[in-house]
């Protein structure tokens, strides 16, 4: 079974070579048969990669320690779920997941791309195949998950305890779906450059793919943030860590792409810019993969001593980013630019959005790469932390967020900013009120906190105003309004939900940063502590035994007003003997939208324990907002206009609509 998986992987590599070369020649020679090879090969390649991944997962599930990667990252006593998630909890397996998702997207283009022009489809599949071939080669040459050990060890070295968590089951697959999803936009862009023309269907295809990738990336980042929040025991939700930035940069660029793709789809404008943005977004995904997978982050110098993997990815990076940018430089002038628009219009607003988002991306890029450059050229190791990003990224985001509610309300081509401002009066008044209430009635609220709350309310109500205006709220009878609301295109809901989610996340961040409280103290069993109106009694430390760890579980009782216990929170320190590692299991109790967070520290000699407590108001909104954004993307994806464009099948239907009035 293991060797079958290995063979399937090699075979998938061979097919990816065919997928690169044959459709490419087909498109050059305008040969239908050669172009037709791309589809079946992409689907078969995906099936083989899936078989290979399945074989590796089954080796993990059955603790087959004759596979080196299983021996290094698994243990027979781990619960089954972590044995399986361990498949992608290591370098080799996660790269296999990467190509699995890449071939999956290639297969989707093959399966649903029948409505694409033949040469475009062939070129897209060829570019997708080339990316696949590069990464298959990378896996086989430097990170083969199917290397065997003979004789096989009897016990594995266990999975990194931090990864023994449900977060690992969801976070990497979502993140990779996002990263790799942008590869389709990239392939479409490079294909368009190779052909020297942008089809109208190109514009239609790029947007749904961007939406899919963006949706999963949003989910992946939100999940990763929550995972770090509860697993690392520091109570923080974002650390501006290079690994986080690696996923955040494609997200920022992808958000810009999502918006410029709207302009391109609706108005045929900004075509060249959108194309460039698609290339840049996937380039940032590749850069993220390089940063995380090459080991360059741990230490530039350690990377230099064992550079095989890093240099290999760097070559892939140079080939695809450099190649596509050169192609862009050569061909972009040939592409025809699209329609014109007035600066104050929906298009103008989206351009502004793009300006802010790309500048923000550049800021994060600098903050992430600068320390690496300093380390490479001198002996110093510096870190660019939150202060840098607060000073640069923050000021860029605030004006963008202020402008967000205007965008969807502006008309295409020529907008009337005063009419829009008038419509937003209610939201503005409410935001002002929220700011004043926060400043006057909440103790310890700073000016920043009050303005932050106002901004969040402005975003939330702005998003709702969009829906209200479009359904004719206040102008028509309630019945008609409801009917109109339900009849709105799904994409309108998508926009509103995505912007609503942004507002909720902002509210969560402001609430946690400005109104959260924190206490660190040493507690004996039986002592009580009070934090922001909640009384906790430390019951004591209790040892317990897990399947592959032992733990000291600290139990806390939440004391109600009457003095009796109304709930229990427990936090533990776990010791994993195989890796000799300790992890902290934080104790979290959600109350409404807020959370009480407990993390155990070291044990004192006299039986006391260091306890860290946080009260985190509205903290769940940070990730809840992410979920709402995902829901918005999903709604936008369901919009009917995105399922369009197959000439042969839909011709009759289309001409049956009388209002088109065209032959």
């Amino acid at each position, binding site marked *: 079974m293991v060797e079958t998986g290995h063979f399937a992987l090699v*075979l998938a590599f061979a097919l990816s070579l065919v997928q690169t070369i044959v459709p490419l020649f087909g498109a050059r020679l305008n040969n239908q048969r050669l172009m037709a090879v791309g589809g079946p090969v992409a689907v078969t390649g995906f099936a083989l990669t899936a078989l290979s991944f399945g074989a590796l997962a089954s080796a993990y599930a059955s603790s087959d320690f004759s596979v080196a990667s299983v021996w290094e990252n698994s243990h027979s006593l781990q619960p089954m779920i972590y044995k399986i998630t361990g498949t992608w909890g290591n370098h080799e397996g996660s790269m296999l997941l990467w190509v699995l998702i890449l071939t999956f997207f290639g297969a989707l283009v093959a399966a649903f791309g029948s409505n694409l022009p033949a040469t475009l489809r062939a070129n897209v599949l060829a570019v997708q195949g080339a990316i696949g071939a590069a990464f298959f080669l990378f896996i086989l040459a430097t990170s*083969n998950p*199917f290397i065997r050990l003979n004789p096989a060890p009897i016990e594995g070295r266990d999975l990194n305890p931090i990864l023994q968590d449900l977060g690992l089951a969801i976070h990497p697959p979502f993140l990779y779906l996002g990263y790799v999803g942008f590869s389709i936009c990239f392939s479409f862009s490079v294909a368009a450059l190779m052909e020297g023309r942008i089809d109208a269907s190109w514009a239609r295809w790029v947007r749904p793919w961007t939406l899919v990738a963006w949706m999963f990336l949003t989910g992946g980042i939100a999940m990763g943030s929550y995972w770090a929040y509860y697993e690392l025991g520091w109570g923080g939700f974002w650390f501006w860590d290079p690994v986080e930035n690696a996923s955040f940069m494609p997200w920022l660029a992808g958000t810009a792409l999502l918006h410029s793709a709207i302009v391109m789809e609706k108005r*045929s404008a900004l075509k060249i810019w959108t194309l460039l943005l698609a290339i840049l977004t996937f380039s940032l995904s590749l850069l993220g993969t390089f940063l995380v997978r090459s080991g360059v982050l741990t230490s530039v110098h350690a990377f230099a001593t064992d550079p095989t993997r890093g240099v290999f990815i760097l070559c892939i990076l140079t080939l695809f980013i450099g190649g596509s940018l050169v192609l862009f430089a050569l061909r972009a002038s040939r592409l025809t630019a699209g329609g014109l628009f007035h600066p104050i219009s929906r298009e103008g607003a989206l351009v502004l959005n793009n300006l802010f988002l790309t500048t923000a991306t550049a800021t994060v890029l600098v903050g992430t790469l600068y320390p690496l450059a300093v380390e490479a050229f001198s002996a110093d190791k510096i870190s660019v932390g939150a202060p840098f990003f607060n000073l640069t990224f923050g000021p860029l985001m605030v004006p963008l967020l202020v402008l967000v509610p205007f965008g969807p309300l502006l008309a295409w081509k020529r907008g009337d900013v005063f009419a829009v401002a008038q419509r937003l009066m209610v939201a503005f008044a409410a935001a002002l009120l929220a700011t004043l209430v926060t400043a006057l009635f909440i103790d310890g609220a700073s000016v920043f906190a009050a303005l932050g709350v106002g901004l969040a309310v402005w975003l939330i109500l702005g998003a709702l105003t969009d829906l209200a205006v479009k359904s004719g709220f206040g102008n028509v009878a309630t019945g008609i309004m409801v009917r109109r609301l339900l009849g709105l295109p799904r994409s309108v809901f998508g926009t509103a939900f995505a912007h609503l989610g942004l507002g909720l996340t902002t509210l969560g961040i402001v609430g946690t940063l400005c109104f959260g409280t924190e206490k660190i103290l040493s507690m004996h069993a039986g002592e009580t502590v009070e934090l922001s109106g909640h009384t906790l009694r430390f019951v004591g430390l209790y040892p317990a035994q897990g399947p592959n760890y032992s733990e000291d579980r600290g139990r806390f009782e939440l004391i109600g007003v009457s003095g009796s216990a109304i709930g229990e929170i427990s936090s533990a320190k776990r010791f994993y003997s195989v890796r000799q590692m300790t992890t902290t299991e934080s104790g979290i109790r959600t109350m409404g939208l807020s959370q009480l967070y407990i993390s155990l520290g070291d044990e004192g000699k006299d039986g006391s324990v260091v306890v860290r407590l946080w009260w985190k108001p509205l903290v769940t909104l940070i990730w809840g907002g992410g979920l709402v954004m995902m829901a918005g993307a999903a709604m936008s994806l369901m919009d009917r*206009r995105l399922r369009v464009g197959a000439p042969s099948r839909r011709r009759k239907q289309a001409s049956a609509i009388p209002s088109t009035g*065209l032959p």
Partner: protein
Amino acid sequence: MLFWVIAAILTLGASLAVLLPLAAGSKGTSSTGDHDLEVYRDQLSELDRDAARGLIQPAEATEARAEIARRILRLDNAAASGKASTRQASVAARLVATAAVLAVPLVSWGLYSQLGSPDLPSQPLSERLAKNPADSSVDELVARAEAHLAANPSDGRGWDVLAPVYLRMQRFSDAAAAYRNAIRLDGDSAVRRAGLGEAIANAAGGIVSADAQDAFEAALKLDPATAKASFYLAMALAQEGRAKEAVAAWQAMLGRLPPDSPWRGAIEQALAKSGSPEVASGGATNGPDAGDVDAASSMSPADREAMINTMVAGLDDKLRQNPRDPEGWMRLVRSYVVLGKADQARDALGRAIAVFGADSDEAKKFTAFAASLGLTATE
């Protein structure tokens, strides 16, 4: 065998995915313009829907409709001019097709023969633990015993059997835990206590700690003839720097032990290590081990001198890093005197005195010691 069959089937399937589209007759396909036209039509119908819903003003709708119509017109122009190049290079196409069909089996089998281990079957842990014990390796037997004990943790006999195996496998902390379980479940015995002590001592890198001493003393209480316990307790004395007592204890053991006891060898080795006063004070961990001494006795005089010089240089180095070791300084001074290097001996003495201060008790001891060797601090 089965693997090769599967591999062949997979290769066949992959090759067919390349071959079939190449062999199929080319279907009449639509041109690019048709696709674009379809998109524009749809944009028009969407525009109408938006206008009906009141999402867009009538004037803007008319303008947008005109814009889309212009795009459609442009499309017709492009379609008229773009129908020149058809297939001309069918030879090249055939070449690419042949290469592609051949590449799939050649690349895959070629690469796999370099990378794969086709003869190695899958080895799921459950299967390995279920096979006949006679075919199992020691590791597999231990794993099986561990699985049994994980299910029946109160099987004292099981722990008792496993504990010495752990000791031999150098899994010392596991051995200590196993001995403790055996003692808890099956009662105390001198063998188990002594084993526990050995496990604790080895887990600490050979240092006989207080915990280990307790275990050995308990063993001796149960059975005063437990050689292992006596041996390690003597080792503890040596490690505390009480070399004379340790040597006495070992020599007493040699007197008591039956002639065929396996402990005789170990004791003689330990005595050899601590035999000469030069090395005794450093305890078991410093100084040359029995192997080094054996090697020295069968060497040529030149080689032997070279070895001794290296050892002395090593001691000198060690004292530069950890200078607060009076015994060590005396050994160094003495070594230099024995080697006939009076200058270096004097230098070492000076450094030793400097470390502890000229007025300290150690300094006085050093001066007296050097005098007994015929050496003075200054010429």
